[in-house]
């Protein structure tokens, strides 16, 4: 797998008269683990949604696909009625299976794929559990599992570890390392600085505009950065979405 390179060129976004992003310029190298950091409400999630083509942004975002154009996307959370009788398997069927309805189960082919993905995130024992009965961390692992089907060339993670338990976080880190070693480009909205330092090839700090971008070792020094990171680290996840 060869992940794409991505180039953000003068990307701006205004919604309802509020300027959310302005003059965003940076590059994501092919196959890099690239973290987006910055204070909450700074527009990280909006930038991700621009990348996914879901926002009426200005400027250009060019994705230079090498292999296939498969994007794996792990949203921040799943907003749904927790009493719904949707099991983990049902959810995987809904997301990964096109025509065969979830209420008739998974096809043999998709069953093998989803079983493997759930095993990878350590949830193979929870296939029949109701989605609403899982913990927040487990639900995020389910969301991560669906992003692995089919094999993505670009993985977009929107604060996947905001409500993650320790086991889940370790499992996420292991998979991210595996995918990165396999050449997948990973764009990751992160809030844990330890993870950024240890795992990212590059980091971009976004607060309406790009404050700085570069290797984590370079951008993690300096008082301005520390102050911002401290705020980013303390803040509760979830309010960055427009």
């Amino acid at each position, binding site marked *: 797998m060869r992940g794409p390179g991505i180039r953000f060129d003068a990307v701006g976004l205004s919604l309802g008269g509020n300027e959310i992003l302005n003059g965003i310029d940076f590059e994501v190298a092919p196959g890099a683990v690239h973290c987006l950091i910055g204070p909450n409400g700074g527009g990280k999630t909006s930038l991700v*949604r621009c990348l*996914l*083509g*879901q926002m009426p942004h200005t400027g250009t975002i060019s994705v230079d696909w090498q292999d296939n154009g498969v*994007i794996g*996307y792990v*949203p921040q959370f*799943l*907003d*749904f*009625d*927790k*009493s*719904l*009788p*949707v*099991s983990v*398997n*049902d*959810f995987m*069927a*809904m*997301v990964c*299976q*096109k*025509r*065969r*309805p*979830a*209420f*008739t*189960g998974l096809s043999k082919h998709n069953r093998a794929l989803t079983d493997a993905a759930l095993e990878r995130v350590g949830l193979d024992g929870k296939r*029949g559990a*109701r989605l*609403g*009965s899982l913990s927040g961390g487990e639900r995020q692992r389910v*969301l991560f599992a*669906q992003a692995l089907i089919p094999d993505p060339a670009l993985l*977009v993670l929107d604060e996947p570890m905001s409500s993650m338990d320790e086991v889940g976080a370790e499992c996420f880190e292991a998979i991210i390392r595996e995918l990165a070693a396999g050449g997948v480009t990973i764009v990751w909205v992160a809030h844990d600085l330890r993870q950024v330092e240890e795992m990212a090839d590059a980091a971009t700090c976004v607060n309406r505009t790009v404050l700085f971008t570069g290797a984590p070792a370079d951008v993690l020094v300096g008082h301005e950065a520390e102050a911002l990171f401290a705020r980013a680290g303390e803040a509760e996840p979830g309010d960055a979405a427009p």
Partner: protein
Amino acid sequence: MTAIYDWIRDTLMNLAFEGTLPLAFQYGFVINALLCALLIGPVLGGVGTMVVTKRMAFFSQAVGNAAMTGVAIGVLLGESYTEPYISTFSFCILFGLVLNYTKGRTALSADTLIGVFLSISLAVGASLLLFVSARVNTHILEAVLFGSVLTVSDTDINVLLVVTIATVLVGVPLFNRLLLASLNPSLADVRGVPVRALEYVFVLMITILTVACLKIVGAVLVEALLLIPAAAARNVIRSMKGFVFLSMAISTVSCVAGVLLPMQLDLPLPSGGAIIMIAAGFFVLTFLIRVTISRFREAQP
């Protein structure tokens, strides 16, 4: 199609005369009503699970009310007052599309907006319907509101047949995508699901189904039949498979029993009312199962 209906009617009527089937089956209208019940039961039960999952119950109520206006306009324009399908379908589809279009372009929350549309459609529909029924037939209002199986014609069965087949052909292959689009639009979009287009597809599906079921269940109660079987199933079920199939079963049994029991027992009840009361019985039953049997309590949020 009439030949097939005639054959079904003749066969069942003969069986009734011979004493194999209950006496009620010697009447053609009973068999017509039964055919309709067998068509709408499973479809409304199945679509109901999607309505509940997508939180669209309130919307189908609004369409049901809009149907009253549609019927009234039809009668005013000279359509037959027992089958005013052209104006009812046209008005309700327009109503559904405008509502969905407005939903995406206002700061109001969906339930507030639907509430506004619902009230307008109820006021206009009831006024117009009372106005025309004073001129034509005083029973129109009753029949439109609560259903009237006694007047089901071959045209009604044909409309229902076409609509249920269309619903199955559209709803089954799009089931996953329709649900994913409401669970997480952003994820659905990444997965190549045309979220906005599917919203319209679903709105159209509910609208057309609601109008087709008017004769049997009535404008006021169509929504209940989309909602109650699914809600009853949800009390005791933990997976999508059980949810859909139990909801279909409850809905079908309610429809058939709601059509047949009042005739068998000689009770002057509107079919819609009887169907919903039986469905409500299932809801109470599943609720009691859930609170009394500990195995089902896990299904609680």
